[in-house]
């Protein structure tokens, strides 16, 4: 199943890229299509953050992951590069679990 998911995502993402470069602009240039394509990643990334940080199976919990997220937020406010943001989240959560 995992391999099927990887290949499906690979083909699908490639088709989205080639569609933008190939399909007559009039079809994709409709404002509603552009708005939705633009908003989808925002809604999904936000949802992914929420689930990743608060979900433990079917339950909502608050644990070291939230501290990790807050550390990432601080790093972003300080304009740190991506890798530093990710490391800040990981190290903060790891430290809290050690305590």
């Amino acid at each position: 199943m995992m391999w099927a998911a990887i290949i499906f995502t690979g083909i699908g993402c490639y088709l989205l890229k080639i569609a933008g470069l190939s399909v007559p602009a009039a079809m994709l240039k409709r404002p509603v299509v552009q708005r939705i394509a633009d908003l989808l990643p925002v809604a999904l990334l936000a949802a992914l953050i929420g689930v990743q940080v608060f979900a433990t199976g079917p339950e909502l919990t608050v644990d070291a992951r939230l501290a990790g997220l807050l550390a990432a937020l601080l790093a972003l406010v300080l304009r740190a590069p991506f890798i530093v943001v990710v490391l800040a989240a990981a190290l903060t959560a790891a430290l809290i679990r050690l305590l």
Partner: protein
Amino acid sequence: MTAASSPNSALDPVERSAIIRDGIVVGVATGAYGISFGAISVAAGLTILQTCALSLLVFTGASQFALVGVIATGGAPLAGALTGLLLGTRNMLYGLRLAPLLSWRGWRRAAAAHLLLDESTAMSVNRESTAAARVGFLSTGLAVFALWNLATLGGAIAGESLGDPRAYGLDAAVGGAFLALLWPRLKDRRNQVCAVLGVAVALSLVPATPAGVPVLAAAVVALAIGIFTHSTDPTDIPTRDDLPSGGERHS
């Protein structure tokens, strides 16, 4: 592809090498976060081979992180794949914007499409000529491709040898990675509303639906806001200023 075959006048060699150098710098900076993808992916339970296949075949950071993020929370592979696919929609908009500028046809366009992502768009969209845009697109796209895949392999091997991913906070790293991907888009008011509603929908569904479904359901928020709001050109195309490096390094 050489600049000489471009429909515009040939590119000045000095400008050409400056654009290529910038592309390589961006590739190195982006490759660095391929390490975090590799480590997070094996922590989510994928094998090293599967992790590397994702970087080679999908080659879009946000979609790859989304797929392994859904898997990490216990979601079905299919739910992860759909989430990854929906996150890839922005690349379509980039292609739309770049098509007249790059003006490739046939196999060249088919090959170039795989390199279409935030970084290659940013390093080509504001160039003055087709020749300069093509050099920016190809140098950045190829540099990111090479380093992203190498870094993925390195991160996956390192992640596998770490042992328990929770002890290193790798589960918390995923949330941090998603926030970093979302952050540049949160300057816009409508995006802020969309993000808050997206979280609310997903979290409210966590207790009631199988893992993976809450994230997919948040797509409804994007659909609703897209249909019921109005603006002529909402697309926020990344530019050189949005990249962590490369943009400032002009000779």
